[in-house]
């Protein structure tokens, strides 16, 4: 209890400090923005700051300026103008990040109010402060800035990590909602709004049909940023998430076409059927073209990544740059940039991930998450600031009718479409699902930016539109965003399952795929499994060969999954094995011997494995520990270039072959009494040990207890030619049976000294000690085929 109080007070303290820092920055922003306006004017008088500086420089050299009076040499001078733009950008980013930090320090707040709302409020505050300080609020949500800088990271993040399987399975539904739903919304809202405007009492009769339809199309699109922001916090099941999210991504094409169509023809005042036909064709081109552009860049990126094995440092850069270029290229042709980004990310991901190193993969993931997170925060803050900036033209009728109509049209649209869609779906959408889909249709900054882009001359009611758009955004984000979480709980909508993918599930998923394809073939009709299977085979046969480096393309999915899983579990162990937190596996003590059919122990022709006494093993441990530490220290001082030299990344294929050999070798080593730490009739294949570990590291601790707490080290009788085929199993730290001691070293980045790190099963993939290669002394000792008992007593273990 007291701990909690202490924590609370500490967090309050921190919060207070943060607020102080934030206030200082705010003041700084205001001041700098204020200061910004003056040098601007003076700079303009001097025909640009550039010349201004040149002036000064020129003075020192040649002639004496007639009016120049000598001043003291400026030891310290302030030149804000020089760094103004980057400085302001950094200030905003810093503000956004500090805000994000701050919210998470107050858990109660972030559980009631979604982050997006809080950020908008902050934006409002900042805008208000700036206005109070008398300065003009900068037009921060500039459309160029938004579309070219703030939006792409979010979309790329979404596209790269898009769960392809559920997306493709529901693609029909998603497309229906995205295309037909958005069209319906646009026309319903636009049309009815026009009708309302024509009513006498509203003084709005100057608003014509086409601008209304344009407004309808701007406001009807579900916004991916807002949806992401809110849905991320409510953890609903995958189906609903992908439906709403997919819809928000794919409706971009419709929005782009409608927007351009109505914008073009608002001047002319009418739209002929010909234009409609052209519009439809334009839609097809925009969407398919966007996807094509994205796919091309994706393939380029995949192809490039095939050759990056020697320059691993810049691998992430390719992912980002190619994707951004895809976006820009699509925008250049007025195609759908969002769809291009999604296509690029989705296409390149499987191949790039097979090619790049694990570190690069982590880098890509973290950079994407970081950028998208900052972007999202900035967007919401800017929305708040832009609201304060105005200009506004509030019209009760227009605004309220907009909000109501949007809601109504969304509900009708979803219900109607679901009715049709359910006829074609195997898994029907229930009413609850429909409600969530309808309620989750949030509007966001894209609508605002599109409205901002409108030409003031063509659309005199632009300010009124903007006000209405902002009101709608606020309504959806605040009201719907805040209430969706309790509603989800109230309606008991199925939540996302956090279960980890297990091997069995993976096996059966694959099995099911093949089974269903087979049944379809027997039935004789080419259903969706058949085509999926054909695509997979085509992919494997031709595409993977081109795009994946080395021999890895032959690796079937199940095996790749299996290795990946093992690797992930190994890393998890490292991360959790050092700490007190234990993975919540079922405390099982099932081991290999329990499932292997009982076999007679093979004849004891091989050398007996050494069984060490307690004292001896303490010594061994000390020696090993010191050696491992030395290796770690050696690696600590690396620079950018040594980062590249990671032999284990490249030795992947050799490793696999070696592993095969090792497995065969292990078959020879068959005797292990049950009391040795590693249970099992065989010093199991490394995969087995890892699997056991995976299911429960506790297993080791408990079995420890049963064997009188005598930890033993098993040294594999590896053949001398494969020095790295060490099967150094269980190693215990004397820190106790619970909590620590089990971990697997992973690369050089593990700087914690967790007692002794061991490798639970020899051939850890990348977990193999780099020390292995770098420290020949250690190598020798580890590959020592096991001293006989007599030698043990006399000589130190390490030669």
């Amino acid at each position, binding site marked *: 209890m007291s701990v909690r109080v202490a924590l609370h007070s500490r967090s309050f303290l921190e919060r207070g400090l943060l607020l102080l820092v934030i206030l200082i920055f705010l003041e700084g922003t205001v001041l700098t923005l204020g200061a910004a306006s003056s040098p601007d004017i003076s700079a303009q008088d001097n025909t640009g700051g550039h010349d201004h500086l040149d002036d000064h420089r020129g003075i020192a050299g040649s002639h004496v300026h007639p009016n120049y009076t000598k001043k003291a040499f400026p030891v310290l001078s302030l030149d804000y103008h020089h760094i103004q733009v980057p400085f302001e950008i950094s200030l905003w980013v810093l503000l956004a990040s500090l805000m994000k930090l701050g919210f998470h320090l107050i858990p109660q707040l972030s559980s009631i109010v979604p982050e997006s709302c809080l950020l908008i409020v902050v934006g409002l505050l900042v805008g208000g402060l700036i206005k109070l300080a008398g300065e003009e609020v900068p037009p921060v949500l500039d459309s160029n800035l938004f579309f070219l800088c703030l939006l792409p990271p979010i979309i790329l993040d979404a596209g790269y990590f898009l769960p392809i399987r559920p997306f493709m399975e529901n693609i029909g539904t998603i497309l229906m909602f995205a295309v037909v739903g958005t069209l319906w919304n646009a026309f319903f809202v636009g049309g009815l709004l026009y009708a309302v405007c024509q009513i006498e009492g509203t003084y709005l009769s100057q608003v014509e049909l086409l601008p209304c339809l344009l407004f309808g199309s701007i406001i009807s699109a579900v916004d991916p940023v807002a949806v992401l922001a809110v849905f991320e916090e409510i953890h609903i099941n995958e189906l609903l998430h992908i439906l709403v999210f997919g819809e928000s991504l794919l409706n971009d094409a419709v929005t782009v076409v409608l927007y351009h169509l109505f914008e073009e023809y608002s001047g002319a005042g009418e739209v002929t059927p010909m234009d409609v036909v052209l519009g439809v064709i334009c839609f097809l081109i925009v969407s398919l073209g966007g996807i094509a552009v994205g796919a091309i860049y994706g393939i380029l990126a995949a192809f490039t990544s095939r050759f990056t094995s020697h320059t691993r440092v810049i691998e992430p850069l390719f992912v980002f740059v190619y994707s951004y270029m895809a976006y820009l290229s699509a925008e250049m042709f007025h195609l759908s940039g969002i769809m291009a980004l999604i296509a690029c990310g989705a296409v390149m991901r499987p191949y790039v991930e097979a090619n790049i190193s694990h570190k690069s993969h982590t880098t890509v993931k973290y950079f994407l998450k970081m950028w998208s997170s900052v972007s999202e925060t900035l967007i919401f803050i800017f929305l708040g600031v832009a609201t304060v900036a105005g200009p506004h033209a509030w019209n009760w009728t227009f605004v309220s009718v907009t909000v109501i109509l949007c809601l109504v049209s969304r509900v009708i649209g979803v219900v109607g479409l679901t009715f049709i869609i*359910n006829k074609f779906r*195997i*898994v*029907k959408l229930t009413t609850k699902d429909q409600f969530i889909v309808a309620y989750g249709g949030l509007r966001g900054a894209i609508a605002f930016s599109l409205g901002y882009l409108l030409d003031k001359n063509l659309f005199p009611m632009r300010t009124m539109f903007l006000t209405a758009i902002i009101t709608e955004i606020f309504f959806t984000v605040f009201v719907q965003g805040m209430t969706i979480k309790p509603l989800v709980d109230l309606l008991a909508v199925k939540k996302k399952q956090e*279960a980890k993918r*297990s*091997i*069995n*599930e993976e*096996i*059966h998923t694959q*099995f*099911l795929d*093949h*089974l*269903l*394809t*087979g*049944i379809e*073939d*027997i*039935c*004789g*009709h*080419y*259903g*969706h*499994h*058949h085509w999926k*299977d054909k695509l997979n*085979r085509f992919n494997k046969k031709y595409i993977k060969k081109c795009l994946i480096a080395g021999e890895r393309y*032959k*690796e079937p999915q*199940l*095996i790749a999954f*299996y290795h990946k899983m093992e690797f992930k579990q190994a890393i998890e162990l490292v991360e959790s094995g050092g700490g007190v937190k234990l993975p919540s*596996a*079922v405390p*099982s*003590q*099932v*081991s*290999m*011997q*329990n*499932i*292997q*059919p*009982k076999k007679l122990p093979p004849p004891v022709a091989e050398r007996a494995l050494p069984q060490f006494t307690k004292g001896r093993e303490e010594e061994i441990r000390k020696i090993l520990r010191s050696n491992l530490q030395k290796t770690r220290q050696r690696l600590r001082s690396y620079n950018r270039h040594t980062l590249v030299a990671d032999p284990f990344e490249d030795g992947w294929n050799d490793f696999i072959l070696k592993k*095969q050999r090792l*497995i065969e070798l292990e078959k020879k080593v068959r005797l292990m009494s*049950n009391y040795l730490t590693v249970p099992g009739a065989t010093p*199991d*294949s490394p*995969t*087995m040990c890892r*699997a056991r570990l*995976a*299911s429960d590291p506790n297993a080791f601790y408990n*079995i420890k207890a049963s064997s009188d707490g005598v930890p033993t080290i098993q040294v594999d009788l590896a053949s001398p030619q494969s020095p790295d085929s060490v099967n150094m199993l269980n190693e215990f730290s004397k820190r106790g049976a619970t909590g620590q001691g089990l971990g697997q070293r992973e690369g050089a980045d593990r700087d914690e000294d967790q007692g002794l790190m061991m490798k639970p099963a020899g051939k850890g993939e990348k977990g193999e000690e780099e020390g292995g290669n770098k420290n020949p002394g250690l190598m020798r000792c580890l590959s020592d085929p096991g001293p006989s008992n007599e030698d043990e007593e006399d000589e130190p273990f390490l030669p």
Partner: protein
Amino acid sequence: MGTLQSLSDEPEYRELAEKTGFSFEQIGILHKRFKQLSHNENTLRRADLDTIPDLACNPIRTQIIEAFFDKRNFHQNGDGTVEEISFEEFLVVMSHFRPPALNMTEEQREKVRREKLRFLFNMHNTDNDGTITLEEYRHVVEELLSRSGALGKETAKGIADAAMLEVASISMGHMEPDEFYEGITFEHFLKILKDIEIETRMNIRFLNMDTTTLCNTGLPSRE
């Protein structure tokens, strides 16, 4: 259209429809396919299914074909395999892949899930001893990976072993070092696969309209 045929066999179809849950049109189309596969005979043999060209590249085709001739899937509490099957039995096996109806209660859904999982279980449990042993599981994984050549064999074993271990850990919890886990029983099988929503995934779309003529069946004659 296909409905002409169903009119003449109506009483028979009605019985089948009740038994398996297919609609009349679906039964008609499947009957047509059956006749096509069996070359207009009344019974279907393994060889007929073997000759479907699309099935040739399926890694688990042997097991799929076997499933059709496995009496356990006929819902008659039978055992063992048969050499040929009639249309009714064909339909019963196919009915395992029917999607569940929209408005089902929780227990009906559970029942459907059990039935589908039982089908899968039977496919793995070839010796019909009520459990999937390690050998049988290894065989399953090997078949799945059979297309990947030599690389698959040892890894398949490793994967199967790991999977088995996982099942044992989840189902059995604590086991003494000398206890032996015989194999995956049906209950354990249910447990480990409860996260895959089988009732929504193990379905194919059965057609209500006849499009079989559009597909290339290319079956050679029986002889």
